[in-house]
């Protein structure tokens, strides 16, 4: 799943939940799924390292 897909699904879930029309069982399931998606997105942002590398030095390092 890409970040975009996760974010899109999350926002759709929120919309459905906010309509207040979902039965409780389903609402709880949606909520659980939403939390999962939120964690996924957050993790993608948190684990990005913020690295700037030069290709040449990478190639150099890759050499035996």
């Amino acid at each position: 799943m890409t970040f975009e897909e996760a974010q899109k699904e999350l926002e759709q879930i929120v919309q459905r939940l906010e309509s207040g029309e979902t039965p409780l069982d389903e609402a709880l399931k949606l909520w659980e799924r939403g939390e999962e998606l939120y964690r996924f997105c957050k993790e993608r942002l948190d684990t990005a390292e913020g690295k700037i590398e030069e290709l040449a030095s990478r190639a150099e390092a890759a050499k035996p």
Partner: protein
Amino acid sequence: MKVEAIDYGDRKVYSVGAFNRGVASWLARLPTVWVEGEVTELRRSDRWASVFFTLKDPQDGSCLGVSMARGQFDALRLELADGARVHAYGRPELFEARGEFRLRALSLERFGLGEHLAALERLKTKLAAEGLFAAERKRPLPLLPARIGLVTGNDAAAKRDVLTAVTTRFPPANVLVAETYVQGPRAAGAVVEALRALCREGVDVVVVARGGGSFEDLLPFSDERLVRAIADCPVPVVSAVGHEQDTPLCDLAADVRASTPSVAGRLVVPDLAQLLERLGRSRAGLERGARRSLDRERRRLDGTHERLARAPRLLLERRRAVLEHSAGRLRALSPKATLERGYAIVRAGEQIVRSGRAVEPGERVDVELAEGGFGARVEETR
């Protein structure tokens, strides 16, 4: 000009200076003409009054030295690179002190631009016909690339601009930079190679950035190999080459064209602050939404519970009402009421007497009235 010779008997001999002066004055009578060639060995110094270069004939390699007044040369701002084709307008001249022949240029024009432009136009038409620039080929940029590839020149301000824009907007961005030639005959091949190397390393999007430059400087970015490599790149490419008005062909083949390297940088990453805010809003909405469903269900449950609690009392009251009703009817039907109206109940022993034949004269009976009663003896029967 009259050139003096020295006579040695019947031999006329000229001094070097006289000879040079003679030739120079003769050359000076030749007309000014246009000469076409490629510039090489350009020598220019702020201390010199003239600029020197050699014009070379690309066909047969013939060379011609050229000099031009430095002020005039500088004013033209031609930024001539080695191999640039020019038309030089001037007249032949002999530098008398050294006996060197050259062309004294009065004006200089870059030549071949028209040729280049026409070739470029032909290539553009051909590639457009193949659909290389078609809008439906353009891919959307990933919202959150795991790694960004950057192709740029080695000192380039373009590189700094892209990196600054990327890291300002999205500090945790990962960027893999491929420095390469972005000018000269090796540039096109080098950029193609850099693109491929980045894709091999694994990037989600590539930015090709190069600052502005002369028409010739940017020509590699219209090279057919490079344009095709950009169109064929497995990940989306953002092109930020030259200035707004330049439009090298790579700009047309790229998925997105950015007007400057900074714009390209901002295009390839999301705004982290905005992203976090949006995510936070979603999460809050998630909780709010779930709570809303929960609250509604709880209210419904509470209502049901209340009704449940009320139910037994209600049932009891209803029963009581029914009972009262029955009791009323019961009372209405009791013999007591009948007795009140003046009737009497006659019993013989335990039996209620309903017929005269049920008793004998002289038999004792009990008479019950609405109030009290009395015993009696039967006189006669009928």
